[in-house]
């Protein structure tokens, strides 16, 4: 799914009939693909918050951005999916177009330096063509459930995977909606205790005295989207599992599913073309 640049509160598209087009922008010469993480308290940002923050960071870093034409030009930035508000991620993707060629690693360093801690640029590659969204069909999620014991969680996950269909209710802006979660779930298992320290640990204050079950699950990107919240709802439906405090979910990876149920790095092709 390609989301057009969000984050412009002002209405657009007024009065395009002047004799000449204003703000002629140079043509893009290069497209870059970025993987970034959303960590710690930054997980409470919405996609629109991130889009605004990102565009401002690009300007502060002095990135020679390509802009659209017209009275309300916007920088050419394309977002690929977006983790929901409240969910952390180690694998978010965005593409930017520039009017002067830039060095991907220099861009990564410069952009990361001006983004707030917790919004971290992990990798930048030059696009080798093709459509990035087509290289993404599933996400791997890691969900921390403080106060839920690994045993309790193991039982619930087994019940979930044994079911062919699990209907959950979801609140949307159009009211309540019933979604079958089970077909989207490729795999689900309980993470080893060694996984109990997430990459988020440095950002969060956590109570280590209580048990914490870790759910590792790979979920296909379907319509309607099945989010980590929905997987937790499914655990409630099949096993009455209700976490005593809000769970913390992190997207660990995105990509196409390979034959073993793993995910193929969506930037692999671009990286291969660079060398």
């Amino acid at each position, binding site marked *: 799914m390609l989301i057009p640049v969000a984050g412009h509160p002002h209405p657009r598209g007024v009065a395009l009939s002047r004799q000449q087009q204003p703000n002629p922008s140079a043509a893009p010469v290069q497209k870059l693909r970025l993987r970034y993480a959303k960590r710690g*308290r930054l997980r409470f940002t919405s996609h629109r918050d991130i889009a605004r923050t990102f565009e*401002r960071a*690009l300007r502060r870093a*002095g990135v020679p951005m390509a802009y659209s034409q017209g009275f*309300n030009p916007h920088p050419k930035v394309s977002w690929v999916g977006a983790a929901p508000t409240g969910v952390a991620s180690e694998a978010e993707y965005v593409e930017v177009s520039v009017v002067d*060629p830039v*060095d991907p690693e220099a861009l990564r360093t410069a952009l990361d330096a001006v983004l707030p801690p917790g919004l971290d640029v992990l990798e930048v590659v030059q696009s080798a063509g093709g459509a990035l969204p087509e290289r993404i069909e599933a996400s791997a999620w890691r969900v921390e459930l403080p106060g839920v014991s690994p045993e309790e969680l193991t039982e619930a996950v087994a019940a979930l995977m044994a079911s062919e269909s699990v209907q959950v209710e979801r609140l949307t802006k159009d009211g309540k909606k019933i979604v079958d979660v089970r077909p989207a779930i490729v795999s689900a298992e309980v993470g080893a205790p060694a996984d109990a320290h997430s990459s988020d640990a440095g950002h969060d204050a956590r109570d280590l005295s209580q048990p914490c079950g870790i759910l590792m699950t790979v979920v296909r990107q379907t319509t309607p989207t099945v989010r980590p919240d929905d997987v937790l709802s499914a655990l409630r439906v099949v096993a009455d599992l209700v976490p005593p405090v809000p769970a913390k979910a992190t997207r660990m990876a995105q990509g196409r599913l390979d034959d073993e149920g793993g995910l193929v790095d969506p930037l692999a092709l671009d990286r291969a073309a660079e060398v």
Partner: protein
Amino acid sequence: MPVGTPVTLVDVSVESVFPALEPLLPRVSKPVQYVGGELNATVKDWDAAAVRWALMYPDAYEVGLPNQGVMILYEVLNEQPDVLAERTYAVWPDLERLMREHGVPQFTVDSHRPVGAFDLLGVSFATELGYTNLLNALDLAGIPIHAADRTDDHPIVVAGGHAAFNPEPISPFVDAAVLGDGEEAVLEITDLVRAWKAEGRPGGRDEILTRLAETGGVYVPRFYDVEYLPDGRIQRVVPNRERVPYRVFKRTTMDLDAWPYPKQPLVPLAESVHERMSVEIFRGCTRGCRFCQAGMITRPVRERSIEGIGAMVQRGLEATGFEEVGLLSLSSADHSEIAEITKGLADRYEGTNTSLSLPSTRVDAFNIDLANELSRNGRRSGLTFAPEGGSERLRRVINKMVSEDDLIRTVSAAFSAGWRQVKLYFMCGLPTETDDDVLQIAEMAKNVIRAGREVSGRKDIRCTISIGGFVPKPHTPFQWAAQCDPDTVDDRLKKLRDAVNSDRALGRNIGMRYHDGKPSLIEGLLSRGDRRIGRVIERVWREGGRFDGWSEHFSYDRWVRAAEAELTPLGVDLAWFTTREREELEVLPWDHLDSGLDKEWLWADWQDALDEREQDDCRWTPCFDCGVCPAMGTDIEVGPTGRTLLPISPVGKGSPVRNPTLTKG
């Protein structure tokens, strides 16, 4: 919701409350507003600070964060090596409920420290409708809402902002108020508090408040007694101790170039009401619009120089990444070098998608060259003007001397240069106003559409008229006026709506935005109220009043009920404070608070208003003796300097910043 039951602090230390707050955040709307982490926010070591300020804007984060006043004080204070300042905002009812349930106190967004642990709590009131939010924040912080109940362990609560020019309605709740510019005042207060703490806090709270009061620039309400006449009017206001002056003076920062703040404007992660960077290009206004409290209390005019503005814009763009720069003031096109400033900035940022905006512009100071410079390098914002009064007669009463011809000429030029839309601001309920004055707003809007269609040859011209209720404010010539009652305002707005719609061919291109007159009446009660209004505010808050500036939270009936319950026993009422015209010699609740304006001049200007006589601007005509400059030892500070902005070479492509390290080498 149990208000008034203080939040129990499990521990009075200054540990971050974030671990307790975080589990609540997934359960509230827009949690990002509570996490802090804004670009250019400052986090300092608590233990290393000698004086600690919590700064509050008593409204939602999205409104409070862009507030220039708070941003300036935050940076000025944090620049001091031994001073720490953090920010706090009003929390929405969904989080408030959870905070009360889980014992989480009011916190700062910078380090999530409890507000009750700071030495001072500075609250900036741009509007009186934030008063209930002050009470709620104090209560959530575990600070007694009544100043009289506070001990040496509680922060000193200081009010500032324009509403602090009459702090009497909130005098039971604040320890002190500062009138006027805050940059220098906060540092002086800090010095006094630092010294008092270093001495071991001799004399406790009473002594530090006395030391603040005796400077003559900090008002401490508890040191003044108000005596009333049998009919409810004030007899006199007198100090009740020796070291305290009879009058308290406003503060004026004269050299704006010496105070180039904010240098590092805050950029929120969350969306806010102003998605741009602002540079204040001058302070004060002497146009003399009689309804305008800001113009009266911020005199004299002090311009920032063209070079000072240029430096702030560049530094701010580098620090924020904003795509729009607002050139802020009370009437931005009146800067003596506005043409050179806008051209110079547009030249500098050619090709970087950086647009400029002038949030307040007068029709008579505006021209199309200016408009073109503003949109040259970026987005084209709409055109907005504020004739304020519908008829020429009414505009003479309010001294807003812009003619309809000026307006039509300006919008015609804009429409022929490609603009399609104009917004016009008016007020309803002005002194001497009749139905006919208001109905002429419709005629003006129709004439704008006619002119636009004619010069552009197009049908898709739009004009939006936006109408606010007039509220008489302290320290203005209208401080004696009777406020118009809400029924009359509503009736006039309905007639105006009908007049706009009477001609469908024109009316369908005219949008109309307004609120009913009720919130204005309550704003009027709070604006011109005295100490007796404190009880009304408290009752409204106890009955659930919050966020009174938001129509979905404001309850007129709750205010009316509270006013009736609290004021009737005192022999006064809501109408007495609002729709009653005052006489020349009545002691007004704010007479002992000196804005520099001579009360006799204000009265004479009020009489001129009633006689429909206009008053010139002292920037271009001789002084008319409003009293401010001699009383405050100030003078107008305006250009032109004759200097220009030198180009910055080179700026980046597609960004105002150039970064050579990015290019492939």
